[in-house]
């Protein structure tokens, strides 16, 4: 019965504040909605990945190599074919493709034979295109190719020295990402015509793949385990259905968890909203509490009433949130579709809904604990005398427990949502630090408002500023909530901006914007002539010499790799390097150790300059020796200097640079850099190059720029979608935080107006106060965001941070204005009613 009394009282006590409590519900709802949406989506993704992994791969096993398969591997593969296992092959390389329209573009050419895919369906337009193009000299292309080349189905395209008729375009290709078409649009041609293109020449990179239909998971795994070292030693990659499940599952899990963290902020903001709401609510209820105490209600009873109320707010908000979340998860595949290689099957995840409800209730109760502790200090004597202020009992144990519960909950929920426990803890710590800094800033605001009080300012300004530090001010909670919202949104903005800036092509007229790759030695003259005839300047011609590492100091690479305990960066020993040689340092690199080639040096061996990250990965440094296998010839070199390289610049950069004179006679290709002043000029030159030097690939940096912009924009779109939840709950909390001061403000302004203040003056006072609050919160939030943005770009993305003061200024202004507007809207009744009505309303 007593429990029922608490529930009844909790319900009755919401009378008259239901509108405001609904607001807090909305704050919790936004958080729960994002949790439920992301959580359900994640479950659905995991299930879909499990059921569709085979379709994504299109086969049971894929084996690939960035060149012709070595003989040992070929014999292993042949033995499988001999055993009756069905296989199909493909070769993939980049090449210029020229259309009837005269447009040309660097595309992915994929020679493939008829069997693929063994699982899943490739949808083409017309539907018969995929099944029939193998029969003739025909091509099936990604839809984007038609746009890029200004071509239609039925047109003829030239690839190398052969022509193909476009039989159709792809609508759905299993395992494709939406962004894929933008990054590397493909042209599929029958495998048997690859030779005729005559594109696979020296220095060109072509990936060879073999697909197996081998519907016996154990046998596949057995084969892979058995041949693992052989495959690894020959740099042959392989993918099983299980690998797809793992990799794709992990990647998508991480993606959704990152988004979940963004959504989690919404929940924490919601909790903060509930806390600040309960804080003020409790203040208004002190009389009631004192009366209840007088009438004999014990502390726990009163405490239970208001804790239950917080729980009810949480439950209400969580229910709304869960429904919203379920609706949003249906939308998520659309928002994230570009990053999903499969069609997500959406089903309602009741487990997530239950978790969402629980989290909503828990969050709001835990956040309410702190303000509710005040209830315990309420003395029944306050009912007798209005002016009675009890000596506040410090309750260090209760406070510590409440604080510990709050911290534990935030850490718990973060760890539950984060990609890894460590990241969850880091996230919680970051939130803690941000909250701490914001609290200090809020304290600083009240303090400096007092300290540097504008004594000479007009009365309304003085009164407005004084409101910041008057008793029962809302400075701390408003600054916390606003500052937090500002912090998150600005951090996202800074990171996005930095990413975009990083990949932006220099508009400086001396920088190259057109690059010719794979120019053979005997084609240099012809290319130079074409460039001259189109007025394209030669900004640079960079030789490229492919090589592999054969020894490091006195150990052969095989010896180093055979010891599996030593070096984790095995790819650094195995990869194919592309070296160059030159006598000068470019603007995208800086020497960090040793001497460049122009300094005299007493060493014996040919000198190289190495990328410092590679040197660190290989655990070698200045003076160490590396022997390179350059097309069968071993060349021993000595590390003379280390460089730091800015890889994000669109310039040819190299892990290792040789001093001139060593590689000059080695087999090599060239990269030519030039700049076209107009798209038309560039296109004409490109066309002539493609027609005459079919193997030369032309890359228009402007196009790459567009592609990257597109991808980054799509990613930030997904992130912003999640940030929307934080914004929504932030706004709700802002309105809530300001609404809670209304009671007090109504009282004050009635008094002021009784004393003769005009409505205009009261409005100005309110505007001054909110402007100050908005500025304090905004400045702190932006300051934190700059720090966080720098940290994220520097440590996580490893790029330099791009901060636009103008943009920050605009954000700050926007926040300050929003605060003033919300404040003004919220106080409009205050100045509209005659003061007597307000005073009477209050006294009743």
């Amino acid at each position, binding site marked *: *019965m*007593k429990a029922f*009394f608490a529930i*009844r009282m909790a319900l*009755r*006590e*919401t*009378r*008259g504040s239901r509108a405001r409590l609904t607001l807090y519900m909305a704050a919790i709802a936004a958080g729960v909605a994002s949790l439920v949406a992301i959580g359900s989506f994640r479950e659905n993704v995991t299930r879909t990945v499990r059921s569709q992994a085979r379709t994504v791969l299109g086969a049971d096993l894929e084996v690939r190599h960035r060149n012709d398969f070595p003989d040992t591997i070929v014999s292993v593969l042949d033995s499988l074919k001999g055993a009756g296992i069905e296989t199909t092959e493909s070769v993939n390389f980049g090449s210029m493709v020229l259309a009837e329209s005269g447009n040309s573009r660097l595309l992915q050419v994929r020679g493939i034979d008829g069997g693929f895919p063994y699982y899943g369906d490739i949808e083409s337009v017309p539907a018969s295109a995929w099944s029939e193009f193998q029969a003739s000299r025909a091509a099936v292309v990604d839809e984007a190719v038609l746009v890029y080349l200004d071509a239609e189905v039925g047109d003829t395209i030239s690839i190398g020295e052969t022509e193909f008729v476009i039989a159709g375009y792809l609508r759905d290709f299993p395992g494709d990402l939406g962004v894929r078409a933008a990054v590397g649009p493909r042209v599929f041609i029958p495998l048997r015509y690859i030779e005729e293109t005559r594109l696979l020449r020296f220095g060109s990179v072509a990936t060879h793949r073999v697909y197996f239909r081998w519907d016996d998971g154990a046998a596949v795994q057995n084969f892979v385990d058995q041949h693992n070292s052989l495959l690894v030693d020959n740099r042959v990659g392989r993918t099983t259905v299980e690998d797809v499940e793992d990799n794709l599952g992990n990647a998508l899990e991480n993606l959704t968890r990152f988004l979940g963290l963004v959504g989690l902020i919404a929940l924490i903001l919601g909790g903060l909203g509930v806390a600040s709401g309960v804080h003020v609510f409790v203040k208004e209820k002190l*009389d*009631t509490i*004192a*009366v*209840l*105490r*007088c*009438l*004999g*209600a*014990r*502390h*726990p*009873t009163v405490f239970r009433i208001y804790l239950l109320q917080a729980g009810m707010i949480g439950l209400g908000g969580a229910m709304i949130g869960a429904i919203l979340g379920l609706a949003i998860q249906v939308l998520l595949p659309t928002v994230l579709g570009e990053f999903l290689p499969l069609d997500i099957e959406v089903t309602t995840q009741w487990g997530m809904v239950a978790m969402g409800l629980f989290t909503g209730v828990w969050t709001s109760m835990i956040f309410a604990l702190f303000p509710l502790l005040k209830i315990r200090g309420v*003395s*029944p*004597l306050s*009912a*007798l*005398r*209005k002016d009675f202020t009890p000596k506040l009992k410090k309750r260090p144990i209760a406070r510590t427990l409440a604080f510990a519960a709050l911290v534990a909950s935030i850490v718990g929920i973060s760890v539950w949502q984060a990609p890894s426990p460590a990241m969850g803890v880091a996230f919680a710590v970051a939130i803690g630090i941000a909250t701490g800094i914001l609290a200090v800033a809020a304290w600083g605001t009240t303090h400096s408002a007092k300290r540097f009080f504008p004594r000479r300012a007009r009365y309304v300004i003085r009164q407005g500023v004084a409101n910041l530090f008057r008793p029962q001010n809302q400075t701390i909670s408003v600054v916390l909530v606003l500052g937090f919202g500002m912090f998150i949104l600005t951090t996202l903005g800074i990171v996005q901006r930095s990413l975009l800036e990083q990949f932006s092509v220099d508009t400086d007229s001396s920088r190259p914007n057109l690059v010719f790759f794979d120019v053979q030695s005997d084609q240099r003259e012809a290319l130079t002539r074409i460039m001259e005839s189109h007025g394209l300047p030669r900004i640079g011609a960079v030789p490229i010499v492919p090589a592999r590492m054969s020894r490091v100091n006195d150990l052969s690479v095989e010896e180093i790799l055979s010891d599996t305990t030593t070096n984790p960066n095995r790819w650094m020993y195995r990869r194919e390097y592309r070296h160059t040689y030159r006598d000068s340092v470019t603007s995208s690199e800086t020497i960090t150790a040793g001497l460049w080639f122009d300094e005299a040096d007493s060493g014996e061996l040919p000198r190289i300059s190495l990328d410092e990250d590679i040197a660190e990965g290989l655990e070698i440094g200045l003076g160490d020796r590396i022997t390179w296998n350059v097309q069968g010839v071993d060349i021993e070199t000595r590390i003379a200097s280390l460089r730091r390289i800015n890889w994000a610049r669109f310039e040819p950069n190299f892990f290792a640079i040789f001093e001139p004179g060593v590689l000059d006679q080695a087999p090599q290709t060239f990269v030519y850099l030039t700049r076209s002043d107009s798209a038309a000029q560039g296109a004409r030159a490109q066309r002539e190059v493609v027609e005459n030097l079919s193997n030369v690939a032309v890359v228009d940096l402007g196009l790459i720029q567009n592609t990257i912009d597109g991808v980054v924009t799509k990613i930030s779109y997904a992130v912003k979608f999640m940030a929307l939840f934080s914004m929504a709950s932030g706004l709700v909390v802002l309105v809530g935080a300001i609404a809670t001061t209304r009671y007090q403000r109504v009282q004050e302004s009635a008094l002021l107006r009784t004393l003769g203040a005009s409505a205009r003056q009261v409005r100005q006072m309110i505007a001054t106060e909110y402007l100050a609050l908005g500025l304090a919160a905004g400045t702190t939030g932006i300051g934190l965001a700059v720090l966080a943005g720098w940290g994220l770009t520097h440590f996580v993305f490893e790029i330099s941070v791009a901060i636009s003061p103008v943009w920050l200024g605009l954000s700050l202004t926007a926040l300050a204005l929003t605060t003033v507007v919300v404040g003004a809207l919220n106080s409009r009744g205050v100045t509209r009613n005659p003061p007597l009505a307000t005073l009477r309303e209050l006294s*009743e």
Partner: protein
Amino acid sequence: MDIDIEEREFAAIIGPSGSGKTTLLGLLAGLDVPATGSVSIDGQDLNKLTEDQRASLRAEKVGFVFQSFQLIPTLTALENVMVPLELYDRSESSGSPGKRASSLLERVGLGDRLGHYPIQLSGGEQQRVALARAFVNEPKILFADEPTGNLDMENGSVIVDLLMTMNRELATTLVLVTHDPALADRAARVIRLEGGRIASDSGVSA
């Protein structure tokens, strides 16, 4: 000071502002504990009880009437009167809380305003609800702090009449703090405070 108030006695505490009337009332009612000395209600030493035990004692044996009515604004008249009953679930002994509360409200003449909120009632009506609430748990002792202080003459006398009648009917001990000499005159015993001390006490004058 040393005061004994007998069962069913009606004592008025009077004195100028700041003489300690309300402090004394708070101590007598167990809302606070004295730094030195002791207070007993119905034989129980309040000093020996915890805060929550004193709350239980109040719920069981003490009633209050305040100068500023102190109704809970979010509850209706009926719900306000029911609170002391609901707090400790005394429904079995004296019928359902709702019935008992509404009969008391009828008794104070508000039988037709059960569902009204405090803000919808006049001051006099609010104080009548407060009276009903004070008597609803049949307290042994009732403390009234300037019950007419916020009311006009007419409403004040209605309240005083009700208070005295119900007090007699329910055989309650009544301790009343007031400024109003006319109200004090109706008390059997008048304790006069000055500067925190008893200046006169008609109950011990003999």
